[in-house]
C-alpha cells in the first residue's frame, strides 16, 4: 500500500526524520480517510514539520498550527517532498 517515491526528493512521511519540514505531494486512501486527514489540515501542498519520529510507533507532525499524531501505516500513505531551498 505504500506509495512509490517517484519525484526527486520525494519520500513517504513515515520516513522523514524528526525536525525536518516537508511539503505534501500526494495522499492515498479512501474517501473517508482523505476527508478526515483534510479536516485536520492535511492537503496536497500543505507544509508539515515532523516533530517526533523514532522510527517505530506513531509519529507527531505539526500541520497548520496543529499537532497531530499519526499511525505509521497512515503516515506511509502520505507522499512528501523536501523543499529545494531553505
Amino acid at each position, binding site marked *: 500500500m505504500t506509495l512509490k517515491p517517484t519525484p526527486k526528493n520525494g519520500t513517504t512521511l513515515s520516513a522523514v526524520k524528526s525536525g525536518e519540514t516537508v511539503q505534501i505531494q500526494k495522499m492515498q486512501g479512501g474517501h473517508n480517510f482523505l*476527508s478526515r486527514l483534510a479536516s485536520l489540515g492535511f492537503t496536497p501542498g500543505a507544509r508539515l514539520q515532523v516533530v517526533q519520529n523514532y522510527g517505530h510507533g506513531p509519529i507527531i507532525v505539526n500541520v*497548520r498550527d496543529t499537532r*497531530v499524531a499519526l499511525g505509521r501505516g497512515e503516515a506511509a500513505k502520505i507522499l512528501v517532498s523536501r523543499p529545494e531551498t531553505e
Partner: protein
Amino acid sequence: MAGHCNLPGKEQQPTTEPDDGTTLTVALAGQPNVGKSTVFNLLTGLSQHVGNWPGKTIERKTGVYHHNGTTIRLVDLPGTYSLTANSPEEVIARDYIIKERPDVVIAVVNAASLERNLYLVAELLPLAQKVVVGLNMVDVAAEEGMRVEPRVLEAALGVPVVPMTASKNRGLRELVETVDRLARGEIEYHPHLPEIRDDHRQVLEAIHALIADCVPEPYPSGWVALKLLEGDGEITAMMRDQCLPPDRWEQVHKILMAHEDAVLAVASGRYDWVGRMIRAAVTRPRAGQITRTERLDRWATHPLWGLLILAAILGVIFWLTFTIGTPLQNLLDTYVIGSLADLASAWLAGAPGWLQGLVVDGILGGMGMVITFLPILVIFFTVLASLEDMGYMARAAYVMDRFMHLMGLHGKSFLPLFLGFGCNVPAVMGTRIIDSRRARLLTILLAPLVPCAARMTVLVFLTPIFFKQAALVAWGLVALSLTVLAVLGVLINKIVLRGERAAFIMELPLYHRPNLRTIGLQVWQNSTEFLRKAGTLILLMSVVVWSLSTLPHGDIQTSYLAAVGRALAPVGALMGLDWRMMVALLTSFVAKENSIATLSILFGDGATSLETALAAALTPTAALAFLVVQMLFIPCVATVAVIRQETGSWRWTLFSLGLLLTISLLGGIVTYQVGSRL
C-alpha cells in the same frame, strides 16, 4: 419538483419559538479542544439540561441565558472538525443547522490553531443563517507566541469576531452582546464565502444543474452539489436512493467517478480561503522558538518517559484513593451513617422489629454504605476530568498506541479504556471515537476488564481486612485485571476478529492550565448521577436484598436468599466461598458496590463490625479468590445495557457476558486451589 422527494423521519420539526424578538435560538459550534464546553458552561451554569440527540446516544446539552430581556436558548453542538459525514457527530451538527435553522451560530475557534479551526467556519458560513466567531484561547495562543488581530480577521471574514479567554471568563459578555445585536440586525452581515478552486468550478456547476430541482427542503442545493463532489456518504445515499430519478443519478454518478480526487480539491479550496482570511491577521512565533507544549511533549510523548509518566499518574490516582479517599470513607461510615443508624434505632424503638430491620440494616446498611464511597469516586472523577481538560489524555493515547497495536487496536482505544477506571458505562459509550466497527467491538468487549471506581471501592474496602500489604494486593489485582485484558485482546484479535485496523489520526491539543469551573461542573454532574443511582437503584436493591434475606421466617439462615446462595454453594466451595459470598457476587451484577451492601446485610448482627465478621468468616486465600472473581466478573447491569445499545447485538452482549463469567470463575477457582496448596 422538490415535493416528490420525501425523506422518512426527516420532517422539519416546528421547534422555532414565536419570533417576538425576545427569544433567540443560538447554536454553539466548534472543533474539539477549542474550549467550547467552557463557554457553554459559563453561559448556562447549572441551568443546563443534558439529554440525548434524537435517536442517537450522543449527549445533547441545552441551556438558557438571559441578556437584556432577551432569552437565549443555547444548544451545544458536538465538537467536529468538519461538516462532512465522517462521524455521527458531524451529521448531528449539520442536520441541526440545516433543519432547525438557529438564529445565530457561534463558531468557537482556538486562536492558537486558527488556520485549521477556520476550516469548520468555511463549512459553517454557507449553511448557517448568521455566524459569530468567538476567538477563544487568546491567552494560550499568546503563550505559544501567536498573535491574532481580531479586527483584521473580522474585516476579512465579513462576520463579527469577538476575542475572548473563556477560561478566565473574559469576552463572554461581549460575545452575547454581539449575538444579540447581530440577531436584531444592528450589525451588518456580509460574509465572504469560500469558493471552489477554478479547476473544479465547472464540474460543480454541472452537478448543480443536474440536481437543483430535486434537492429536498430544507437543504441548499449548492451545498448538496458540493457534498456530492466531496463524496459525502450520507448526502450521496440520500440523493441516489430517495431524490434523483435513476437516469439523472447515472449522469451525476458518471461525473463523480471522473473526479474522485475532488475531495482534496474542495478541501484545498477551503484552506486557500482560510489562508486569505488569516494572512494579515495572524503573527506566528519566530521559527525555532520552543513552546511550552513542545517542552512538555518531549517528556510526555517520549517512548520511555511517556510510559513512566502515565504509570506514575495511575499510581498517584491509587495513592490518593488510599490516603484520602479511604479515611474519608471510614469517617463518613462511622460518624454519618453510624449516627444515623443509632438515631433511627432510638426513634424506631417502639416500632415493629421488621421496620427497624428494614431501615437500619436494609436501607442504612446497604445504601448508606454505598454513599460513603462518594469521596473515592470524587477523587477519580476529579483526576480524570483534570487530565482531560489539561490536554494530557491524547498523549496517553499516543504512548499507548504501540501496545494497543498488539491487540489490533490503536491509541484511540486506550482513551475509553482509561475512562473505564471511572465507570465502565462512559467507557463503552466512549468507544464511539473509534472509527472501525471491528476495533470498536473489541474495545467494548475489553472495557469491563478495566476495574471501575465501584469495583475499586470494593477492593479498597476488602483488602485491608485480610492483608497487611493491602495496597500491594490491590495493585496486584488491578494488574491482574489489566493482564487478562491484554491477553484476551491479543487472543481475540488473533482468533475471532481478524481484519485490517482503522486509521490512527488524532489531534494533540496544546496544554493549558485546567479550568476549575469546567472540572467542577463535570465532577458535579458525575457525582449527582452516582447519588441518583444510590437513591434509586441501589436503594431498591438494598431493600430487595434485605427482604430476601429476612423472608419468609425473619431469619437469614432460612431465607430465600440463603436458598439461592446454597444452590450456588458447590461452585463457591471450589473457591472456598460460602453462600453469603456467592450472593454478594450475584448482587454485584446490579451495581458493583452492592457486594459490600449485601455483605453488610448478610454478616450484620449488630454486635460486630462487618470487617471483624468477614475476617472471621473467610481465610485470606478465599478472600483473594473472591476478589479475583469480583474484579473479572460480568459488569453491572448498566454497563450491560450500554454494551447492548452500542453493539446493537444481543449475540455480542451475551458472548461478552459468557466470556467474562467463565474467566472470572476460572480465575477464582485457580486462585483458591493453588493458594490453599501453597
